[in-house]
């Protein structure tokens, strides 16, 4: 999905603007030749999801009132939902007009900007207070509820979630303040900025960066709580801490807890009960809400809270009755939870109180396994938590996450240069696989079973980097080689390397584990052979692999000229020159490489360094030269090692010559004297 997003025009546009901008125009950025973002005026009231808001002028239609949310690079925008958001035209949703990467001059960085229609009526909640009277106006309540729930339903239809529905993200679309719209949901991680009151128990238990995309049920819960705030007229439970809210929600149930804080008008109780149901399956969807508000009968009327067990289980001196309470307490008291599991007390409790034989059998198996082998307490408690309450997040050694949110948590760890060993352990275990096996509706991605393999493989292109980019299409590539550049797809990789190049980098290879893992995930199996070469022990093979990969990428994605990158490659690829044996040819290649490095075209370098004809000729010539050198060295060794033998040979030859000479002399003398004698 990510590959479908065309960000490159924005990147090219920003370069154009960068070159056009004079010193006085640095406060503006022209996106896609149309939308002019003015950084000199900060619209703080529209800041949202850690993104900063600035006014935008549409050069084609200047009457439109637009603003841009410039995303913070600390987290990452939800790229995968942007095309959907752009296509949605719902009166209760702030309209996304355009998006793209920009140069954010106030912070001198590259950021993603989302351009929205300006909600001219302002925020619904000013200083945490709303002035809409919903307590008496049932019709208004019905209209707002259906419009907000309708947005969730639209998202559900597209297979996406909002995860940022909360009071401070509601705006009046018009000056007359007649229409309410839900604001941005894509500028940051899903549910990352959600206040604890507006998140479900499960989501609240997870680390906020690892809440994952969730489902429409999460959004419906948020709509319920937001509506409750609207009805009451203020942001509820604003002063309570997140752990306290979580504890209360688990203890009492979300609706009971909310109603204990504020009085809910009787006519709305049924709707809120349905929307704030803690049991995901029983939580109302759009149709139930519509039926309720339209006075039509609903087929299903469920209990408000999870069924309590007959007998309590005591953990940390506290009596707990429901599986979610047990899991919550287990996660808070790992040592005690482990002892309870190993001693079989939780199994007994399940059998006697929950009367769930299937679950008891699973626990029994886990208990026996632990009794036999012993081992990792956190792992055992995590497994127990998954079995007991499958919709809860996984907790392992202090990190609590949903499998679809773990990639973002790892991303933040990398971003802050923190240790990721715990995450490596998670991927090296079967926790994520077990979690998906226990889900009724969710299906794991195809690669889940391969995580363990990826972790075990130390080669480049595998490891935890591969997993996070496999799981999550939203997170950008965070290689240190990119500097301040933003890379969301393979289209931007070369450009970012080109822009981020500096003399300090020249000695480094123009790639690293992160880039290769990212490209493998985004470009697919077609670069699998490149991985094989990159993991070779021969440096020249690695260099050749990178050269081919980048040349193909430049041919496919552009840009046509990458002067800095070719200079970088020119230095790095010198090692390939050494595969040629002829020194003169090597020097010739070095000179040519230097020339081509200035052209910025990688394929020219490939043509130079991988000339089949030259390579073959060099190979043949080298073989001949080797042969000649061997013969010469053998001859030299023979002369040096057999000197006495050669002396003997010379002596023999001398004597042979002397003997022949003597015989010839004798014969000549004989013949001469004989002839003289005969003649006389």
């Amino acid at each position, binding site marked *: 999905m990510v590959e479908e997003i065309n960000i490159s025009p924005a990147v090219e546009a920003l370069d154009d603007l960068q070159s056009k901008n004079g010193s006085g125009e640095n406060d503006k950025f022209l996106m896609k030749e149309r939308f002019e973002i003015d950084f000199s005026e900060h619209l703080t009231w529209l800041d949202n999801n850690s993104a900063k808001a600035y006014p935008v002028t549409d050069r084609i239609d200047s009457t439109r009132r637009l603003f841009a949310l410039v995303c913070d690079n600390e987290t990452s925008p939800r790229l995968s939902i942007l095309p959907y958001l752009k296509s949605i035209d719902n009166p209760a949703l702030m309209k996304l007009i355009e998006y793209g990467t920009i140069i954010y001059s106030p912070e001198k960085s590259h950021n993603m900007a989302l351009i929205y229609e300006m909600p001219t009526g302002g925020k619904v909640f000013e200083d945490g207070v709303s002035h809409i009277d919903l307590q008496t106006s049932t019709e208004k309540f019905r209209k707002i509820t259906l419009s907000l729930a309708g947005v969730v339903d639209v998202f559900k239809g597209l297979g996406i979630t909002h995860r940022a529905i909360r009071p401070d993200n509601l705006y009046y679309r018009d000056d007359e303040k007649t229409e309410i719209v839900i604001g941005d949901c894509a500028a940051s991680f899903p549910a990352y900025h959600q206040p604890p009151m507006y998140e479900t128990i499960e989501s609240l238990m997870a680390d906020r960066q690892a809440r994952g995309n969730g489902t429409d049920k999460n959004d419906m819960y948020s709509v319920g709580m937001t509506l409750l705030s609207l009805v009451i007229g203020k942001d509820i439970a604003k002063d309570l801490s997140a752990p306290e809210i979580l504890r209360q929600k688990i203890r009492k149930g979300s609706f009971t807890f909310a109603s204990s804080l504020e009085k809910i008008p009787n006519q709305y109780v049924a709707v809120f009960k349905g929307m704030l149901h803690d049991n995901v399956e029983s939580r109302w969807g759009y149709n139930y809400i519509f039926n309720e508000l339209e006075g039509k009968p609903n087929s299903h009327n469920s209990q408000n809270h999870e069924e309590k067990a007959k007998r309590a289980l005591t953990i940390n001196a506290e009596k707990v009755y429901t599986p979610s309470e047990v899991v919550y307490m287990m996660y808070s008291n790992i040592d005690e939870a482990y002892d309870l599991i190993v001693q079989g007390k939780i199994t007994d409790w399940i059998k006697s109180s929950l009367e769930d034989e299937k679950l008891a059998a699973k626990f029994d198996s886990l208990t026996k396994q632990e009794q036999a082998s012993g081992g990792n307490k956190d792992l055992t408690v995590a497994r127990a938590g998954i079995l007991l309450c499958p919709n809860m997040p996984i907790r392992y050694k202090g990190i609590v996450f949903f499998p679809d949110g773990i990639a973002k948590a790892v991303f933040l760890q990398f971003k802050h240069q923190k240790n990721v060993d715990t995450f490596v352990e998670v991927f090296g275990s079967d926790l994520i696989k077990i979690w998906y096996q226990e889900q009724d509706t969710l299906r794991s991605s195809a690669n889940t079973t391969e995580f363990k393999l990826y972790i075990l493989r130390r080669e480049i292109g595998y490891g935890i980097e591969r997993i996070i980019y496999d799981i999550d299409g939203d997170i950008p590539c965070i290689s240190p080689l990119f500097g301040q550049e933003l890379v969301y797809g393979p289209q931007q990789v070369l450009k970012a390397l080109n822009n981020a190049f500096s003399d300090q980098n020249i000695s480094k290879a123009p790639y690293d584990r992160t880039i290769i893992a990212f490209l493998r995930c985004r470009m697919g199996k077609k670069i699998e052979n490149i991985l094989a070469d990159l993991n070779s022990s021969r440096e020249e093979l690695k260099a050749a692999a990178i050269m081919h990969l980048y040349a193909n990428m430049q041919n496919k994605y552009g840009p046509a000229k990458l002067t800095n990158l070719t200079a970088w490659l020119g230095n790095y690829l010198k090692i390939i020159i050494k595969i040629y044996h002829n020194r003169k040819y090597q020097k010739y290649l070095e000179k040519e490489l230097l020339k081509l490095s200035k052209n910025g075209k990688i394929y020219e370098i490939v043509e130079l360094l991988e000339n089949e004809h030259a390579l073959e000729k060099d190979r043949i010539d080298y073989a001949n030269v080797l042969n000649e*050198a061997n013969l010469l060295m053998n001859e030299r060794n023979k002369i040096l090692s057999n000197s006495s033998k050669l002396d003997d040979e010379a002596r023999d030859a001398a004597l042979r010559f002397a*003997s022949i000479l003597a015989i010839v002399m004798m014969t000549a003398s004989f013949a001469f004297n004989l002839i003289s004698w005969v003649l006389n």
Partner: protein
Amino acid sequence: MKQNKAKTEKTPLGDSFKRLNWFQKSALVFFLIILIITTFPIVLILLVGLLPTMTVMYTDRRNYDKQIIIGCFNLAGVFFYLFGVMSDYAVRKGNFDIVNDVTMLIVMLGAAALGLVLYNELPHLYIHISHSNYKHRIEKINSRLEKLAEEWGIENQKPEVNTDEAKF
């Protein structure tokens, strides 16, 4: 090799002579005495002129190269005098003056001496020439190898022998 060859070879003349009975031996000796008396000047020249060859054959029985070289040169010198004697055989018959001809003695013995000089010095000359040839060849090889190393990066391996012991 030469020694082995010398050991296995036996003088056929000696063996044949041993196999003769006393009558045959006596007849042979008698015949030889008659031959010496009738060809006395020639025998005398051969006895005097081939003295160096006979000395070498006696002192260096197994050194055939030496025997051949000295013997052949000696014979070449002897032939000059021998054919001269044969021309005026009737005049010189029974005359011992022939041994008083110093020139002829110098020619015969000098030829043998030349053979001895060649036998002794020619090998040294040859070895010297071959040494200088090999040295030149090694220089050429080294120069070629250096050129190849420069052009192709081939490692110019050092000779495996101890260069101190090498003569070149």
